[in-house]
């Protein structure tokens, strides 16, 4: 390997390590990232000057695995130090537990009431935990929950396409529950805690659009074949999407009125 190749490989491994360092908490990165990269780079150049290509690869692999482990440790310490972050992760863990429980134990039936009570309790505890956040975090949490629900929809759709109708049904049921949970958190943020109308209005719009796309997406297999699974699910999602869309328009109108009134007051 010539000098140019070595420089190229060093810049590549430095970039890779930099990307792994992104896993550290922000405060740790702010304090040590530059120094860590410099130390890593210096060591790489030293190994290169010794012509030790194997050593360079070993050093990179050792550093990569070590940094991964240490980043996880720092994140854990950061969670312990930060009650808010701990509450977020705890709440999401409750919800994930509820989701897994529902996925594993929901009987194959055409009713939303088939979700086991323990799974619902886990999901509700998670939602209540999340609803205690500050408004700025609530919107993100709502989108995260919705994202989880939408992933379930996607998986449900794929399962339906592969003729795993039972799995599709369970995934769709849990997807709807999560999306309703996401809307609940968003509504909570909107009506009780909202201080950032721009943030929640864009969230509502996104939520509405994605819900409607979901509904259409789920109706496609129904239209293409015989009824794969009960049309109540995509219709339910479509209704949700329309309702959230109306919510978006109403809040937009309220914002516009509020802004107009403020302008009048300022001008007057």
């Amino acid at each position, binding site marked *: 390997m010539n000098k140019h190749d070595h420089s190229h490989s060093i810049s590549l491994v430095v970039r890779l*390590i930099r990307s792994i360092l992104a896993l550290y908490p922000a405060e*740790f990165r702010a*304090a*040590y990232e*530059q*120094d*860590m990269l*410099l*130390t*890593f780079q*210096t*060591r790489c150049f030293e190994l290169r000057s010794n012509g030790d290509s194997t050593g360079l690869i070993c050093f990179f692999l*050792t*550093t990569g695995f*070590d*940094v*991964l*482990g*240490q*980043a996880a*440790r*720092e994140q854990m310490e950061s969670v312990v130090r930060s009650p808010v972050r701990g509450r977020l992760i705890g709440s999401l863990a409750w919800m994930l537990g509820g989701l897994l429980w529902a996925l594993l134990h929901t009987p194959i039936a055409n009713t939303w009431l088939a979700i086991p009570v323990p799974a619902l309790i886990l999901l509700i505890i998670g939602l209540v935990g999340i609803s205690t956040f500050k408004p700025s975090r609530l919107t993100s949490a709502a989108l995260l929950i919705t994202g989880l629900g939408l992933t379930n929809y996607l998986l449900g759709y794929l399962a339906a396409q592969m003729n795993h109708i039972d799995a599709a049904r369970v995934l769709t049921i849990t997807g709807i529950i999560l999306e309703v949970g996401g809307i609940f958190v968003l509504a909570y943020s909107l009506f009780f805690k909202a201080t950032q109308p721009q943030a929640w209005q864009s969230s509502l719009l996104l939520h509405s659009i994605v819900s409607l796309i979901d509904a259409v997406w789920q109706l496609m297999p129904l239209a293409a074949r015989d009824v794969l699974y009960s049309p109540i699910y995509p219709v339910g999602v479509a209704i949700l999407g329309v309702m959230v869309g109306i919510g978006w328009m109403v809040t937009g109108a309220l914002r516009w009125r509020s802004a107009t009134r403020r302008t009048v007051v300022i001008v007057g």
Partner: protein
Amino acid sequence: MTDDSPDQLLPLSPIVFHMLIALADGEKHGYGIMKTVEEDTYGEMRIPLGTLYGSIKRMLAANLIEETEARPDPALDDERRRYYRITPFGQQVLRAEIMRLDKQLALVRSKHIPGWADQGRAL
């Protein structure tokens, strides 16, 4: 972590012990610490990058080391580097650890451990 009693931090982990030894003869940056520990232990201990800076962070929090503004010739140095030096409390902890290890060594020397005669004499 309190800095009232050095004994509260004992025993030190091998990495922290060698890092304090490395800093005992003057301030160093992260790479300098890594290199000195490797040389001091004849290559037996190589501190990986994440472990090194995680330890530095915890040692700063425990007041064993502190960051220093003093730098060598700026022309020879990169300003992004951070330099560390051992604190007076860190020196106390290091002395306490050395005394603890010394007592253990004395104990080992006083025993006749089978198969360890030659190594025992070397100690």
